[in-house]
């Protein structure tokens, strides 16, 4: 399913069944047909094309947001585990209270001062991901620091920095990858919610969340328009969750046995 979405996004870079931007008022509310696979919206835009272009948008936002969280969060987590002491304390207290600021809350603050925009939603989602990765990385890195092979490495005179990259990181990586898939799904949901509220991606850029927002005002006229974008989000998230479960089974057989 995730592959299907990636393919949709890739194809939409070159070709869509119609144009996602062209407004042809005479074609309003057309039913699905060969020309317009899923029909058209209130401005005569092709819904299938908008959905495909929207896929691009969701993927870009999610990739950037998860990467922000991944790089900063994992580095902080590794640092906390390597240094211990007050460094760890500061990083962990910091991540403690960032939990009080879910993506939507930070996005609300950011839009209030910077105005709405796609970049803000990426930032807000990314910021929220940092403590999630930091905690996870620190927790599993700590347990690996206590293992014999790390002791051996230390005894052979390797520095903390080198041990972190040669022994700790490879061992926590699988857990991080699984977490990244799950957060990717959450990022897609958050982006959709933000653009639904009008805080994220701005028109005329098609995005699933905003399509839903526009469709809602037309619910009485054309309920199907409110179905497709949501279905796209649900498929994307469902696929990513399954991918996460699958990856966990492959990368970490111990966890799957416990389940």
């Amino acid at each position, binding site marked *: 399913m995730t592959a299907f979405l990636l393919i949709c996004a890739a194809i939409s870079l070159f070709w869509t069944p119609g144009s996602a931007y062209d407004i042809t008022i005479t074609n309003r509310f057309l039913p699905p047909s060969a020309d317009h696979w899923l029909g058209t919206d209130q401005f005569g835009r092709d819904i299938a094309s908008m959905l495909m272009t929207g896929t691009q948008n969701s993927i870009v936002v999610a990739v950037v947001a998860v990467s922000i969280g991944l790089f900063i969060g994992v580095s902080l987590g590794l640092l906390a585990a390597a240094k211990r002491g007050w460094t760890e304390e500061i990083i962990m*207290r910091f991540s*403690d*209270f960032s*939990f*009080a*600021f*879910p*993506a*939507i*809350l930070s996005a*609300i*603050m*950011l*839009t*209030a*001062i*910077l105005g*709405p925009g796609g970049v803000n939603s990426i930032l807000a989602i990314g910021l929220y991901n940092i403590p999630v990765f930091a905690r996870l990385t620190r927790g599993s890195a700590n347990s690996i620091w206590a293992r014999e092979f790390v002791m051996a490495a230390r005894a052979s005179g390797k520095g903390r920095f080198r041990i972190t990259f040669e022994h700790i990181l490879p061992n926590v990586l699988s857990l991080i990858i699984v977490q990244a898939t799950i957060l990717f*799904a959450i990022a897609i*949901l958050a982006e*959709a*919610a933000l653009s*639904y*509220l*009008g*805080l994220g991606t701005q028109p005329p850029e098609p995005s699933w969340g905003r399509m*839903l927002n526009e*469709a*809602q005002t037309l*619910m*009485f006229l054309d*309920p199907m328009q*409110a*179905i497709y*974008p*949501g279905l796209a*989000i*649900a*498929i994307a*998230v*469902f696929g990513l*969750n*399954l991918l996460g479960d699958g990856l966990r089974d492959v990368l970490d057989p111990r966890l799957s046995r*416990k*389940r």
Partner: protein
Amino acid sequence: MSVFIAKRVLTLLATLIGASIVIFLVMEILPGDPALVILGVDASDEAVRALTIELGLDRPPLERYWDWMTGILTGELGNSYAYKVPVWELVEGALLITIPLALMSITLSIVLALSIGLYAAANHNKAGDITLMGISQLGISVPNFWLAILLIILFAIELRWLPAGGFPGWKEGFWVCLKALLLPSLALATVVGAILARITRSSVLEVFREDYVRTARAKGLSQQATLWRHVLRNALIPVLTVTGIQFSALLTGTVVVENVFHIPGLGSLVLKAINNRDTIVVENVVLLLATMIIVVNFVVDILYAVIDPRLKAHDI
């Protein structure tokens, strides 16, 4: 126990102060000039200066922060820039809707989660279990605001059983209001309930494998009695943790879903405030929501110790 609680209360206070400092920094220091944000970039210099003085923004940041904090403790939050009424009045009205909505949703999700989770665990790997877990996997993947729209289409437009949105106000009677909040809380509870149901199932299954459960069964206790007396209490610990974590998702979900149903709660208030550049309202609502999340997690921490006395002994 009292040492444990005292430690937790200290952490709670520190976290709350930390959160308020972050909000203050982001909302009042980062943009450089809140007066400019309110008036827009085209405003004349004099207008900006006048507003800066009117809002008291020319005073040093530390003093303003102190005023904000003492204001919160005394209920004096200042006036909304857009409506010229006390912020507290706006927030109070919104809270009277958001809190019942959040409580209704969390109750609904716990009821859903426990019944589905326990049923699935009791019928482990049978058809019922597999179907329910498939449905819950779907439930996790569905965005709550889309579910809300679907519920409106089904129950309000097609079946005409429930109102499509809006809130009549508590004066109109309890049941009318409950009806207005039913669809929103259902939309919120489905997603959170699906997550909790999966946790409940796996945690009950895990506890069933423990030695003490086998002992209880061996000494002749029935499956039912074991479930209630031994399994549930232990299995509830992870469920409680996740409920605490999910509360923040639920609260931000409320912000979104309130806008789907045009319910005048905190979510609608804060969104309107953003559009009106009413930063003082945004600031206070964000702090309020963050405080709610922090306090709920604090309560969960304390509840832990009540359910699981082992934690008290460690005095973490």
